[in-house]
């Protein structure tokens, strides 16, 4: 019998099974000669006794705790019973908020659709701008020249001035290749804004409308031009008729 076996026996026994009667004869014989093991056994027995004393004097659950737990339980139950009403109130609030939000959204959409800022601005511009004389509306990519007899030559200076004026307005247009040949761009053109079918509208303008001085050209004469108009009604380019 070894010390290790004695210790193993003590460790394996639960609840301080340290009664010498449970020890085998070999263990008892070892304990008689080994002070260390005897001390170990004695120490463990005293510890077991101390723990037993603590276990036999358990702390009492305070009555205040009982009351607190019961109070908490009743509060919870009461809260659960009230919950449906509270839930209903919350649902009502959510519904009111949702309806209001939906109404506002619909109103905003209607406002955007009916009164778009761009179209309104265009309408104002159109109202303020001089009304062009629309001669003809031609199919896309086709231009029709006016009869020779109706066309009067404008002065070269007037043409030059007009070209300069138009080129100033169309300075931002960097992509003339998108327009038919001979047209000067009146706005920024790219594949999105200048794509699709367009119409050519022939107009007659008085020189004063183009900012030409009375002396620079004959006031009685009118200047003919072809205006390239997109499907949205906005002019993309202009070409002065010779």
């Amino acid at each position: 019998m070894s010390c290790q076996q004695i210790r193993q026996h003590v460790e394996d026994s639960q609840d301080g099974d340290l009664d010498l009667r449970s020890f085998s004869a070999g263990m008892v014989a070892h304990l008689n000669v080994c002070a260390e093991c005897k001390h170990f056994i004695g120490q463990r027995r005293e510890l077991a006794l101390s723990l037993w004393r603590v276990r036999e004097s358990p702390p009492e659950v305070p009555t205040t705790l009982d009351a607190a737990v019961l109070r908490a339980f009743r509060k919870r139950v009461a809260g659960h019973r009230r919950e449906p009403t509270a839930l209903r109130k919350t649902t009502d609030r959510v519904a009111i908020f949702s309806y209001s939000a939906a109404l506002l959204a619909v109103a905003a959409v209607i406002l955007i659709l009916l009164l778009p800022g761009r179209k309104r601005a265009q309408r104002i511009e159109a109202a303020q701008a001089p009304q062009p004389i629309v001669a003809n509306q031609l199919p896309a990519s086709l231009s029709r020249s006016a009869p020779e007899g109706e066309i009067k030559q404008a002065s070269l200076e007037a043409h030059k001035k007009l070209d300069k004026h138009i080129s100033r307005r169309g300075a931002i247009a960097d992509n003339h290749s998108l327009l038919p040949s001979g047209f000067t761009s009146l706005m920024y053109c790219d594949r999105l804004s200048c794509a699709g079918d367009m119409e050519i509208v022939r107009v007659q303008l008085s020189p004063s409308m183009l900012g030409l001085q009375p002396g620079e050209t004959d006031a009685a004469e009118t200047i003919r031009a072809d205006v390239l108009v997109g499907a949205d009604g906005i002019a993309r380019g202009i070409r002065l008729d010779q």
Partner: protein
Amino acid sequence: MKAQPHAVETEMNNPDSRSDAELLRLSIEGDESAFLRLYERLKRNIFRYAYYVTASKPAAEEITQEVFMALLNQGGNYREQQGDVAGFAFGIAKNLVRRIRRREQGYECLPPEESAIPILVSEADSVAEQVVRNELIDRVQTAIASLPLHYREAVVVCDLCGLSYTEAAARLRCSVGTIRSRLNRGHSLLARKLKPLQKPRADVGLTGTEGCLI
């Protein structure tokens, strides 16, 4: 012979005859008598465990109350196949103990007040014996409280709450071998801490340690 429906109904409604799981279900539904019955069944062990592990009566009260509230709130997650309700409640208590421990880690404990030391008076003992016993209990409790948590839990569960190794293993979610090992280590530490209490024995001759390490 005719069955007695009234007697059967009474037995069914009697909370004492119901299992913990059924009491828990009824408690969640708001049955106060079922809740009180369940509370009566579980409160002592939970309070005792919390008290010995935290070494603080207010903390033990807080934990016990929280455990029962958590049982009501999280009781729906309980599955009978995973163990008994006591084990479920013990798991909640264990988590709460750790949470409180983390919360109070930054604080230093004040020495216990005189009134906090339990005075156990028994008619069988003399006053001197009672004082010695109370002092011993206090010292043991202090020693237990100073153990590392996993050793402390094993000592409390096995030695003070009286659970078997198997039950303790189930409660602490570890193997029986681990429980045994932690308990042994905890006992060694406790014996060392309580050494001054133990008197040297004159009747044991010193033979030297080398003789024991055979």
